[in-house]
């Protein structure tokens, strides 16, 4: 029953989306004005209905209702409850339902609270949101029904990929999806503004919090995903330039650019067409990412749906939405002027360089990710990986970082570098000190060297905007900017340090033997079998000592899941302020090294944790900016209402 109930809610929601599109479009004409009042309530109800459908799916998973095909394919009665629930979105159909749910909830939320724009633009925006949703409803209901029944009912389910049975991964996809799909709001705003030709500071101010919120989720989602890959895959890698990772990075790059250009538009009424364009591009990147992941067109760990029918369906949706939006942009771009002018050395100038660099990096990532498909059409398979992305990205990333050191200090419109000389000198000295320090340590490759040095310079430069300010009266948005930029420096330092200074040790140890890795001495005390709810494992008990310090215990496991049968390694980590010890238990190692030895993999990764602390700082900066901006907007709305109220009373 629950499954049918969920499916009915989904069909109803799709019908409402169709109504929302028609009513929203008609309301823009003179004859259809009467429909205007219906659009917002319909959007809210549509959001609620998809939420109901999503809860229904979670319920059938929580109860392991094996008569539902999706549950039988992806769940198992023996799984811990939390992974049963997380299993609801750990598969193709469920994750698409999550996508649609987030999209219509976001639309409903916009309809409920957004009052800053002219009502006509809002109607066009909500119609746009419904238009995009409709395609995904169609996709879900026609080719990916999550509530399909199965007859006969199997005795047991197939289980969930053990790699996905991890708390980090349970909440990674929803976070990322909030980001991906949150950008649909920016997309709809861009379409709405293009249709009614109201691109200006008010539009940017209204769109900014939505972009900011989506961007925060994307940032946190990517950070969490990277940490998951790091500790779960068991080899200490934290970014692979895998297509699925790129799929999440591309919307982030576009959203970051959009965030900065929206600031220019909001403050200075410049970069108008460019900002609208980025609004379209950002969500297009989300859709392309989804296409890449969902269609399984690029083989990758995450591509659990290898199904050409679905692939072509999403491809058609992509063509309609991206093509349609770009056509609309092309038609209207001529009427949207670029707006106010500014000098090269100015806040706007720096932000334009930020935007151009981010877009170039986006271009590299997109091209590099898709190019293997092009060569495959010519019957040659090539791989594009870190040796391509790292240096090519750096070509644009390095100049952007240099500009980032001074950009936030510059004034709008026109400024001179002489005015910010003290800050430039401070950052320069920090860079010089870092160059000397890294040279003294020695043996560091080119890219990590640049990374370390620029990270130190940026860390100093990023707090400069606080200089000479009364810290208590500094607006939250400025704090947010400072923290986010500092977060970039922190994360960059972690990345560069990890790749420059990591020490790796692969050893075969008997119980009681020790090995050293960097400053650590690790003793293998014992290896014992242990059992969990749906797995058994060999667990190593290790004692790790840092230099002459006390020992701490580490318990890495080699796990065997039986539904589906698969081996995973559970690494054990010991975190210090200056890095992380990473231990993995392989199998038993007989053969020439003699019996009774265990394969042990050890890494000492100095400052590696800064990568994710940096990511969290960036996200926190976003949160502060969001709070600051929203609070000041609310104050402005209240003040406006008060003035209007007084005027009304005086006139009476």
């Amino acid at each position: 029953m629950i499954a049918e109930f969920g499916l009915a809610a989904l069909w109803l929601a799709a019908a409402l989306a169709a109504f929302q599109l028609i009513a929203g479009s008609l309301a823009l004409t003179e004859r259809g004005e009467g429909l205007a009042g219906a659009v917002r309530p319909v959007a809210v109800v549509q959001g609620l209905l998809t939420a109901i459908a999503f809860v229904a799916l979670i319920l059938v998973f929580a109860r392991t209702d094996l008569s539902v095909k999706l549950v039988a394919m992806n769940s198992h009665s023996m799984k811990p409850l939390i992974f049963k629930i997380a299993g609801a979105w750990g598969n193709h159909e469920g994750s698409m339902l999550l996508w649609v749910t987030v999209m219509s909830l976001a639309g409903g939320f916009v309809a409920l609270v957004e009052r800053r724009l002219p009502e006509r633009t809002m109607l066009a925006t909500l119609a746009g949101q419904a238009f995009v949703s409709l395609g995904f409803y169609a996709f879900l209901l026609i080719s990916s029904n999550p509530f399909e029944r199965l007859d006969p009912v199997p005795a047991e389910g197939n289980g969930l990929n053990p790699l996905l049975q991890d708390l980090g991964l349970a909440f990674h996809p929803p976070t990322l999806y909030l980001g991906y799909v949150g950008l649909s709001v920016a997309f709809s705003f861009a379409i709405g503004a293009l249709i009614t030709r109201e691109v200006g500071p008010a539009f940017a101010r209204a769109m900014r919090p939505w972009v900011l919120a989506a961007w925060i989720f994307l940032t946190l989602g990517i950070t969490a995903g990277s940490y998951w890959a790091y500790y779960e895959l068991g080899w200490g890698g934290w970014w692979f330039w895998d297509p699925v990772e790129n799929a999440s990075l591309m919307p982030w790059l576009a959203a970051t650019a959009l965030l900065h250009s929206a600031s220019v538009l909001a403050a200075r009424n410049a970069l108008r067409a460019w900002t609208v364009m980025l609004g379209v591009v950002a969500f297009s990147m989300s859709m392309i990412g989804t296409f890449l992941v969902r269609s399984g067109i690029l083989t990758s760990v995450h591509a659990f749906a290898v199904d050409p029918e679905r692939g072509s369906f999403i491809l058609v949706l992509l063509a309609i939405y991206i093509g349609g939006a770009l056509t609309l942009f092309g038609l209207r771009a001529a009427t949207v002027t670029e707006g106010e002018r500014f000098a090269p050395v100015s806040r706007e100038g720096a932000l334009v360089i930020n935007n151009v660099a981010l877009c170039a990096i986006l271009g590299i990532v997109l091209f590099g990710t898709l190019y293997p498909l092009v060569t495959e059409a010519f019957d040659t398979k090539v791989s594009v990986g870190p040796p391509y992305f790292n240096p090519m990205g750096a070509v644009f990333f390095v100049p952007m970082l240099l500009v980032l050191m001074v950009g936030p200090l510059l004034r709008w419109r026109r400024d001179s570098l002489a005015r910010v000389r003290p800050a430039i000198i401070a950052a320069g000295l920090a860079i010089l000190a870092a160059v000397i320090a890294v040279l003294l340590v020695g043996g560091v490759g080119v890219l990590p060297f640049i990374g370390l040095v620029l990270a130190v310079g940026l860390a100093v430069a990023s707090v400069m905007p606080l200089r000479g300010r009364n810290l208590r009266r500094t607006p939250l948005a400025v704090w947010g900017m400072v923290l986010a930029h500092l977060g970039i420096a922190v994360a960059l330092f972690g990345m560069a340090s990890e790749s420059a200074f990591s020490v790796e040790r692969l050893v075969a140890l008997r119980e009681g033997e020790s090995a050293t890795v960097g400053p650590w001495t690790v003793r293998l005390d014992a290896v014992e079998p242990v059992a969990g709810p749906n797995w058994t494992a060999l667990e190593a008990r290790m004692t790790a000592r840092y230099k002459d310090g006390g020992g701490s215990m580490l318990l890495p496991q080699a796990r065997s899941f039986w539904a589906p049968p698969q081996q995973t390694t559970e690494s054990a980590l010991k975190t210090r302020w200056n890095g992380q010890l990473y231990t993995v238990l392989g199998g038993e190692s007989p053969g020439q090294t003699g019996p009774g030895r265990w394969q042990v993999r050890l890494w000492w990764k100095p400052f590696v944790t800064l990568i994710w602390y940096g990511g969290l700082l960036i996200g926190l900066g976003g949160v502060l900016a969001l709070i600051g901006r929203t609070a000041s907007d609310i104050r402005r709305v209240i003040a406006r209402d008060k003035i209007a109220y007084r005027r009304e009373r005086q006139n009476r």
Partner: protein
Amino acid sequence: MKHVLAMLLGLIATTLAAPAVLAQEEQTAPYAYRQLDDPEQEARAHDLMVTLRCLQCQGQSIADSDAPIAGSMRSLVRERIAAGETPDQIRDWLMERYGDYVSYEPRVTALTWPLFALPVVLILLAVVLLRRRFRSGRAAA
């Protein structure tokens, strides 16, 4: 009761199966999980391994994978480095055998040159865009 049994079976399977596989692997690929004694050689081998694709896995380098084929390839790389071959020679040999797919570092060929032209195009585009933007800005001001 059923799952206690399954658990026991699983336990036996882990303790028995894993060493058997490893034993076989150790004979054919001695350096799959063993580093070279010379740290300088090992560093060279490692730098090469992170740029080689594990053919069986999806989106992982041979330095990041537990798959048997990744183990054999690691061993092959280490043995050849120890025998004095350069990383480029090893990469070429592997690419000849497994195709361009095995290397994460694309070569410049008739098919892949656009990958390397792209950054240049992007730089030119950026320069043109920025110059136009700022020049017209100055004219207006």
